[in-house]
């Protein structure tokens, strides 16, 4: 295991002091490592990501137990803009760009961590380097961009903050498969060139497992399975429930209705 960049152990998130959304989640992201969190809707993926990036306060939620340490400093329940200052940057699921600002302004707005060390100028080139398409759209207002371009701009703007750990929420939401392929490839090249850790939250396991070194599967707020890419790919349940390859030949609807395979996670 490379030195843990981010270590989350047994955190529990409670909404409005009553509803427990996530319980006992433990995960870690190493330097230059891409980690994926897989899970269906409501599995607690986004809550975990919000817990890490500090954006729980807005909907009256709190980390009630456990701790999150980033490079050996505890950051749970800390102010969001201060967490970003440390180098953890979130690419949110929806509303990921400032619609009325142009692409150039979207890239100029973030507060780069590096700005404190004065290499603001170089960051601009970085975004355009990874996403040349953005350079052409420089003066267009972000609201008019296509889905893929918005995602690129969102990741570019996140890079502007000079992150050490990039949290990407639902990269593939509403995008065509070919666009997802292209984005995941760029993510890997970002990781290789900049040497930053990436925590990817995904519903389409296929895209995630393409580039993830390590992955966790979450259901109902708990981590039910984790392992490196090969282990998950070969795991029968992951294949059936997440990758959609049905075991053996096609079966008629009636058979499936009677007998529903129970998941043997804890094997």
């Amino acid at each position: 295991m490379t030195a843990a960049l981010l270590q989350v152990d047994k955190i529990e998130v409670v909404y409005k002091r009553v509803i427990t959304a996530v319980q006992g989640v433990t995960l870690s992201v190493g330097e230059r490592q891409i980690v994926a969190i897989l899970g269906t809707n409501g599995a607690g993926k986004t809550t975990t990501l919000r817990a890490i990036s500090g954006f729980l306060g807005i909907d009256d939620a709190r980390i009630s137990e456990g701790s999150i340490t980033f490079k050996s400093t505890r950051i749970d329940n800390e102010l969001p803009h201060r967490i970003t200052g440390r180098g953890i940057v979130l690419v949110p699921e929806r509303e990921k760009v400032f619609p009325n600002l142009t692409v150039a302004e979207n890239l100029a707005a973030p507060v780069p961590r590096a700005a404190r060390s004065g290499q603001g100028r170089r960051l601009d080139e970085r975004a355009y380097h990874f996403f040349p398409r953005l350079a052409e759209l420089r003066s267009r207002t972000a609201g008019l961009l296509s889905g893929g371009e918005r995602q690129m701009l969102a990741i570019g703007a996140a890079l502007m903050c000079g992150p050490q750990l990039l949290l990407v929420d639902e990269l593939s939401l509403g995008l065509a498969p070919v666009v997802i392929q292209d984005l995941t490839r760029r993510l890997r090249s970002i990781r290789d060139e900049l040497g930053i850790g990436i925590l990817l939250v995904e519903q389409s396991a296929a895209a995630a497992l393409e580039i993830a070194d390590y992955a966790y599967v979450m259901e109902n707020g708990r981590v039910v399975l984790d392992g490196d890419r090969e282990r998950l790919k070969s795991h029968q349940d992951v294949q059936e429930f997440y990758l959609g390859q049905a075991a053996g030949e096609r079966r008629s609807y009636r058979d499936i209705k009677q007998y529903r395979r129970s998941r043997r996670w804890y094997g």
Partner: protein
Amino acid sequence: MSWSRLGRLTLRAPSTTSRFQLARTIRLQLAVNILVLGSIYALIACGYVLIYRVSRVLNLAHGELMMLGAYLVLATASLFNGHPGIALAAAILLSLLTGAIVYIFLMRKMTGEMVLAAILTTVALGILVRGIVILIWSAQQQYPAQALDVSNPSLVLFGGARISMWSAVLVATTIAVYGALFIFLRFGRWGMRMRAAGQNPLLAAQRGINLHGVYALAWSLSTLTGALAGILMALDSGLTSSMPVIGLKAFPAALVGGLDSFAGALVGGLIVAGAEVLLIYYVDPLLSDVVPFLALIAMLIVRPWGVFGTREDLDRV
């Protein structure tokens, strides 16, 4: 109606100036009046827009903060009595500080609250500021121009129209303020961050923008522009403790233009001022009190989000 009035005037005009020339002077003078009143309303309105645009809070204490800026000139004038320049700069700096203090100690607590509570807090702040001003400077008519011993000569513009020096300075200041704001918001980094925070506070925080910093900046800029308006009006025509009501009259100008756009505030100011000046001249002076609000009602029915305001704001409010 207006023709007969114009006709009656020209008949009695002194014979030396031709009829055509006098009518031109009147029209020029009306234009100058509209320009001066328009820039007063626009300068005040941009204070409302600055705060509303970023933090969706309508600052009903803007009139009182404007007045506080003018009274601060009295205080600084006695401190630096000799050089008015430093006294004015000190007063402007103080009001900048007041804006930040007001946000940090009062409005920051109210960010999560509902719209009505936030508006009422600003109203309570207005009452508090008015009480303190009357307490320290009494409700007497004061003259900052006399305190700074600067004169206010009347300048003759081309075509015989006249404008007082401080009104001219006020028009110039308004243009300068709007220019500076345009550049700051368009190109300045912090300006972009203010626009970003205004559109989507959550995403702005995720991009590392310290929202409290942006809101404090918006409040201090707003009290700065408010103080400028207050000081220049006080230098032009004296200062009483009933100046906040003028702040309230400038509010329709901000709303007619659209509460979250500066171009709107500028245009709104000119529209309301134009309507007021022309109505005073051609119809009935008494209407000038109600005109801003009639324009407001008309605009609210036709285009509630104002001339330049963004529509989606309406639903989110």
